[in-house]
């Protein structure tokens, strides 16, 4: 008894110094590592960039400050999270568990999907920490005669391009454009798609047929052509890209949601809500939409990957944010003209796109399996 108490207090002591160490001492290795490894990664970034952090108060730009604040937040948040997790007893599966908890447990068993979600988290962190991670400026050109087309090495992980810029830094900063567009555009399209689909399915009749005819129309329009058209004719700013990508992707979500709402409308709990005299918005937002969220989340996850590929395609055609802004598609296009003598310029940003999109697709598939009771 005293031994067990001593061991537990020892593990608490270890855990209060290094997050996850307490879990390791208590024999919960897997859970401990999920705290320990990210924390160590953040700590090593802090150590590696200590000179720049020290110089920050004098010279730092807003970018740098955001990066430092993010780093500090991550270090503290992981530490606090680990400490709380160590104190609370491990959850055992039981009959009172919510649907989301059951789904989360299924998701955690899918190793590929878990790996994908870690990769996505790491990428979003890297996006915010970019100034501390990349030793080079993504845009400034140094002495071109000495730095042009350097092959990948310890100094330049992914090599340099025609103008002597470090590809790794450009890819890192490019993630800001791609990941932001992917996230915001998908948020727009999913919100719009869910609302339209719920309206069409719930109202039925004329509203339904008008919305669905319009959906068919947008679906049968070649999306890439529409995107190229609008971006080429209007403006190549980030805002236009986000709006255009967001406002052309909703039909798939609308179709899914409408189909589900059609059958939900006839279910007893919705009929009961109607009989109780609730107003339509309340029924829609409190009773109907929460029940279609599972497929919506899946389509949103897959949609982010899809949007990132599309954005890269537009940048590749020269229709993304104008140079010298680093975009993944734009770097691949740059590399296209020097494929023979500098294969690394086009290869690495493309590989990054593949990895990111693969991660989103793996997570989406994992969510689909976890959230749908029939597929568990």
């Amino acid at each position: 008894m005293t031994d067990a108490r001593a061991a537990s207090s020892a593990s608490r002591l270890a855990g209060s110094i290094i997050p996850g160490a307490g879990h390791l001492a208590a024999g919960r290795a897997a859970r401990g590592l999920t705290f320990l490894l990210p924390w160590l990664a953040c700590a090593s970034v802090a150590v590696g960039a200590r000179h720049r952090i020290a110089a920050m108060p004098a010279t730092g730009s807003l970018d740098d400050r955001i990066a430092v604040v993010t780093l500090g937040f991550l270090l503290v948040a992981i530490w606090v999270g680990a400490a709380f997790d160590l104190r609370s007893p491990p959850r055992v599966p039981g009959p009172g568990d919510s649907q989301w908890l059951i789904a989360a447990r299924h998701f955690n068993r899918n190793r590929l999907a878990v790996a994908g979600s870690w990769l996505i988290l790491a990428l979003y962190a890297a996006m915010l920490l970019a100034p501390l991670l990349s030793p080079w400026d993504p845009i400034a050109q140094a002495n071109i005669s000495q730095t042009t087309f350097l092959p990948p090495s310890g100094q330049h992980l992914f090599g340099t391009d025609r103008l002597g810029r470090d590809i790794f830094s450009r890819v890192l900063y490019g993630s800001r454009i791609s990941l932001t567009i992917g996230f915001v555009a998908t948020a727009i399209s999913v919100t719009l798609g869910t609302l339209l689909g719920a309206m069409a399915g719930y109202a039925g009749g004329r509203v339904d047929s008008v919305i669905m005819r319009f959906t068919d129309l947008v679906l049968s329009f070649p999306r890439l052509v529409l995107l190229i058209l609008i971006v080429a004719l209007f403006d190549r700013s980030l805002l236009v890209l986000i709006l255009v990508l967001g406002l052309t992707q909703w039909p798939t979500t609308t179709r899914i949601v409408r189909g589900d709402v059609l059958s939900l409308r006839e279910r007893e709990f919705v009929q009961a809500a109607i009989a109780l005299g609730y107003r339509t918005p309340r029924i829609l937002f409190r009773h109907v939409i929460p029940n279609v969220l599972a497929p919506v989340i899946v389509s949103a996850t897959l949609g982010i990957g899809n949007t990132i590929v599309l954005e890269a395609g537009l940048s590749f055609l020269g229709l993304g944010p104008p140079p010298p802004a680093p975009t993944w598609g734009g770097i691949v296009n740059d590399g296209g003209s020097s494929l023979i003598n500098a294969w690394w310029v086009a290869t690495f940003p493309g590989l990054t796109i593949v990895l990111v999109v693969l991660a989103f697709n793996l997570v989406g598939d994992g969510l689909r399996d976890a959230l749908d009771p029939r597929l568990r």
Partner: protein
Amino acid sequence: MGSYVLRRLLGAIPLLLGIATLIFFVLHLAPGDPTAFLFGPGIPPEVIEQTRRNYGLDQPLALQYLHWIAAMARGDFGWSLTQGRTVSAILREALPNTIVLSLSTLILVFVLGVLTGVYQAVRQYTIGDNILSVAALFFYSMPSFWLAMMLVLIFALKAYQWGWPFALPATGITSVDYEFLSTAARIGDRLKYLVLPVTTLTLALVAGVSRYARGQMLEVVRQDFIRTARAKGLPESRVILKHALRNSLIPVITLLGLYLPFLFSGAVFVEYIFAWPGMGRVIVDAILQRDYPVIMATSFIFSTLTVAGSLIADILYAWADPRIRYD
């Protein structure tokens, strides 16, 4: 059946009209003038005015719209603003090239997709199934323009550099000396130029089909009539290839009709990279040069083919599956 087809065909007309309207107004609400690209500085305003009048750009928008719709109904797509010939002439040149590319891709995607799907379903959860699933997702996640570039890098540029016997051409549709080749050599030449573009498109699209075919196959295999077939003592190959495959093919066919939009947008990149003179290139060039009549005609044709694809898919579905009745 006949009335269903007729009803669907009639229903497609307002859809196409809506698409044409959308194209027209998106294009004409955009800032900028299509003739701006034709003139350098120092051109007298009367000339610009006359050109605008020649192209009918001085008329009110509503009138231009009606003219355009009426002309399209007659099959007249107007004159290109930048190429000095009719849009129909441009389309006649580009459309066959895109159709060759798309059709060969579609056939390959279908055959390969169904084969891998059936293999995966029969060997569910084995190593082979898992490897194929991950590989499919990998190619599915890949932007087609990057895949195209990597194929060019390895199978055209590096293969040539390293002296591999099968170095493939990276751009174009025929060799320079195509005119002087014999018929057999011509076919070989064209096939050689098809390999890389078709491979790119196929790899990008096959993942979805194989995955769908796998799911369908798994669903069919669990049904009672398959158990009956096995209980009768039929050999397993016959059960799978005859009884199960036929029933799982129906939804896959419809999927192919729905794949046309993806095929076209893939073709835009592939044609751009491989300098394939098809619709994708025409449309990108036209958009960048603001050649309004060409943009309107090409995007309308793309949309029409998309609508036709889903229509054919639905009709095939109704025809192939007697359980489905659309009345």
